[in-house]
């Protein structure tokens, strides 16, 4: 007798493949259509596709995360949909196959649903990629195939797990969405409800993002290309001349995340098998298949109801107590809706259910009270110096990192002073820029209004700092992040200004902690490299080449160094007093009001040979290794403030300063 009892049944697999053939064939067709569109786009981007087609294929991996998010769910719904139908469920499970056989065979079929179409697309793309000017472009094809299928594995695993947990397809879609987007929803909920009650606390995003596979998989870069910027520049002329190759350096995080999420998908599949073996088949059609999940479903529905109601209330209502009322109403709505779905009746308003709702509301109220009165002392917490590995300060510009004990102590002092001088309005701490400005406007009432009509700028003679972010990297590996507004004219403002005006902090701080170097990449700017430095623009005006001689540049660096020693170079206009008033001519023939002539700072562009300008590349990663032979330049945008007298003198000596320096501090509010 033939054995039909193994873990795989080819007949069932074949049936799956033929039964749902229209789906995966359509998917394959869409992929082929996609590749045709990409190829056409690449040709349209230049005279030929020599460079851009591989780039599009590389970028397509990110897009495939969104595709697989939908396709993984769809295939899981199809393959395990029979569990939601009592007739099919009972009929199939009366056949002489173990549940493991059903499950593993469906999994094999499900994976084939992705492997076959993507393999087809990879095969089609292979010769097209091989014919491009990217030397190793053909390798993108198998990489695309691998990445796409790993993404699919993740989403298919979650989809199958969702199907096993519940008894109908709608509930499965709900679970799937919760697993994929629940953390992001939770983030918005916490961020809009709890976080505003904690002064300076930032809702951590890392966990929310990590728990949302689709977000991570769809945003990471999987492939990097050499010659990208050259091709970008030459795309209008001779892009076929651009040669390059792709490499994975700098994309390790994306591939690691992909591997991790694929493993998570596998774990979900394994968990699904365990649950499937325990599943009671009579739950086909029910919302949940396991009694233990009933309270989980209730709580999830209640929380979801309150989240949605609250977020909508925040969007359309300004009154705080109405927002809280919506929160409670949403909770009740979610709770009773879940009860109705579970019990399949509208008669759920029994005393016991009200008791459950009351308990849920009490837990919510308690959590709000704990946060509002900071019983856990979250916002008061300042880590001890010995517990801090490093601390970074980010303002409106690039940040600075400090590891010296003295600097860390200063930061802790600033943190402490900010907490003492905190502002509160209407029961919530002010963390919003405009709210802060209006508070200052109300309190000081020293505004000098130049424009009376609406939409005209107001110039306020007040001073404050924009927000700063403190990031403590602790010795235990944890990160603590706080974001505050601070008073620039108080002690904390002065301390911060001193801290951020240090020459080394500004110019020699490598990687992303550099205070001023927009794209520093570990390069240090010092006078030894003057020959490699040039200055091209002051504010929005090109400079005369005569001003960019090595001597002139050396003088500029010396001037800036002197300003650093005078604690006048901190990168934030709001930490500085005075303003510039433009006395030159505007290029356009228009009438400009006084506000248009006011600047809190002007900028100087410094170019350093050996780097490259990635100012347009928002995806630039600091860990990208630059080729030694590159002739490209790195650009530093340096802000000059009214207190930087030495730098201003340098500008004046080269007739580059059509401004007057005013001592009054103003803020132009549009």
């Amino acid at each position, binding site marked *: 007798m033939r054995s*039909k009892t193994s873990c795989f*049944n080819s*007949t069932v697999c074949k049936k799956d493949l033929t039964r749902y053939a229209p789906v995966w064939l359509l998917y394959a067709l869409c992929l082929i259509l996609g590749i045709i569109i990409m190829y056409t786009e690449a040709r349209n981007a230049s005279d030929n596709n020599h460079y851009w087609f591989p780039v599009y294929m590389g970028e397509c991996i990110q897009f495939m995360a969104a595709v697989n998010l939908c396709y993984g769910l769809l295939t899981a719904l199809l393959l395990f949909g029979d569990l939601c139908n*009592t*007739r*099919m469920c*009972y009929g199939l499970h*009366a*056949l002489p*196959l173990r549940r493991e056989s059903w499950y593993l065979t469906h999994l094999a079929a499900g994976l084939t649903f992705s492997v076959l179409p993507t393999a087809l697309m990879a095969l089609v793309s292979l010769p097209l990629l091989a014919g491009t000017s990217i030397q190793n472009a053909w390798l993108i094809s198998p990489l695309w195939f691998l990445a796409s299928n790993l993404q699919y594995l993740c989403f298919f695993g979650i989809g199958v797990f969702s199907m096993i947990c519940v008894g109908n397809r709608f509930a499965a879609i709900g679970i799937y969405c919760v697993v994929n987007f629940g953390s992001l929803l939770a983030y918005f909920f916490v961020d809009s409800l709890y976080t505003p009650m904690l002064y300076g606390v930032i809702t951590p995003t890392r966990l929310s993002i990590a728990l949302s596979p689709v977000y991570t998989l769809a945003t990471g870069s999987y492939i990097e290309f050499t010659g990208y910027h050259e091709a970008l520049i030459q795309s209008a002329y001779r892009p076929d001349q651009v040669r390059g190759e792709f490499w994975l350096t700098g994309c390790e995080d994306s591939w690691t995340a992909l591997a991790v999420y694929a493993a998570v998908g596998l774990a979900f599949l394994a968990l699904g098998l365990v649950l499937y073996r325990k599943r009671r088949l009579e739950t086909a059609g029910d919302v949940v298949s396991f009694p233990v999940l009933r309270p989980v479903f209730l709580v999830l529905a209640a929380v979801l109801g309150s989240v949605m109601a609250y977020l909508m209330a925040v969007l359309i209502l300004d009154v705080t107590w109405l927002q809280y009322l919506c929160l409670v109403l949403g909770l009740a709505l979610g709770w009773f809706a879940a009860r109705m779905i579970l019990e399949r009746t509208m008669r759920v308003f029994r005393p016991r259910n009200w008791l459950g709702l009351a308990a849920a509301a009490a837990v919510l109220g308690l959590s709000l009270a704990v946060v509002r009165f900071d019983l856990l002392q979250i916002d008061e917490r300042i880590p001890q110096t010995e517990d801090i590995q490093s601390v970074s300060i980010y303002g409106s510009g690039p940040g600075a990192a400090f590891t010296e004990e003295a600097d860390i102590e200063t930061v802790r002092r600033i943190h402490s002073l900010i907490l003492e001088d905190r502002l509160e309005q209407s029961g919530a701490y002010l963390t919003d820029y405009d709210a802060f400005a209006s508070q200052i406007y109300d309190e000081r009432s020293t505004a000098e209004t130049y424009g009376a009509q609406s939409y005209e700028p107001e110039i306020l003679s007040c001073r404050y700092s924009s927000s700063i972010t403190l990031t403590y990297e602790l010795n235990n590996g944890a990160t603590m992040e706080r974001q505050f507004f601070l008073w620039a004219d108080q002690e904390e403002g002065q301390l911060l200004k001193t801290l951020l005006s240090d020459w080394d902090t500004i110019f020699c701080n490598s990687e992303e902690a550099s205070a001023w170097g927009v794209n520093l990449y570990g390069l240090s700017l010092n006078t030894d490299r003057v020959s490699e430095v040039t200055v091209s623009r002051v504010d929005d005006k090109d400079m005369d080449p005569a001003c960019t001689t090595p001597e002139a540049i050396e003088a500029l660096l010396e001037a800036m160094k002197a300003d650093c020693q005078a604690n006048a170079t901190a990168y934030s206009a709001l930490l500085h007093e005075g303003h510039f008033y433009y006395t030159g001519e505007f290029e356009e023939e228009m009438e400009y009001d006084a506000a248009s002539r006011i600047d809190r700072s002007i900028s100087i562009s410094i170019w350093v040979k050996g780097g490259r300008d990635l100012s347009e590349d928002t995806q630039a990663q600091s860990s990208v290794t630059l080729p030694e032979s590159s002739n490209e330049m790195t650009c530093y945008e340096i802000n000059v403030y009214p207190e930087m007298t030495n730098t201003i003198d340098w500008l004046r000596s080269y007739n580059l300063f059509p401004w007057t320096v005013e001592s009054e501090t103003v803020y132009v509010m549009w």
Partner: protein
Amino acid sequence: MLKIENLTKTFGSFKALDNLTLTVPKAAVYGLVGPNGAGKSTAIRHATGVYQPETGTVLLEDQPVFENPQAKARIGCIPDEIFFFPSASLEEMGRFYQGVYPKFDRELFRQLYDVFRLPKDLPLRRMSKGMQKQAAFHLTLSAHPDMLVLDEPVDGLDPIMRRQVMSLILSDVSQNGTTVLISSHNLRELEDVCDHVGIMDHGAMLLQRSLADMQGSTHKLQIVGHTPEGLEILHESASGRLKTLIVRGQAWEISTKAAASRPAYFDVLPLSLEEIFIYELGGVSDAVKNILL
């Protein structure tokens, strides 16, 4: 052949099976009768390995049925709601069964086309309910099961179709010695085909007997005269001088005792199946009595 012992199943707070015990002898046709909601289908889903027993056992020749493909391969099941893959034809379903049932007989499957005369390539969902039922038999019989489990096989069929289905079952039993467990909520449907009957109500087995035993052990005694002594009387009624007694015992034994009382007239008559159950079940609920009517 099939032995269910002390089986209990609950759906939430509802107890669908309550300590059910049922034995289907080999090559027997066992009729499982009970009103709607008695637990017949639940018992059958346990017998076919769809449900996992909470307590108790379900054994097919001493082998558990649940998650046991070897045991399940010997059981052919036709549920009350027949399943076919959407848009599948009988031929396609045949190929599927062939890949799943080890003993599937392709040749028999071909031969049965002549018996059922069903279209090969017409999607099954487009067939009438009776034709679908026939298709289910077509497929199940081709799998050569040692045991057929049929849940309400003639429910919803017209009388001609019912007779056809029943004759199919009987011919399979006579030709292959197949054991049959067949459920119905109407005893009359099963009267002519079953040799064993079990009556269920509220998830429990009220009565389980061989029809031959029951019909041989209970008789109707009509007598004019004194009631004989030493008889186990289940029911007594009188119409004028004529008394009608339902008596448990063999016919000759009852005749001897009746003659000993020197009555003016007596006669010992066999009972119909319906009468046996009415008197055996005595004071059971109306719901159960309905299955006899």
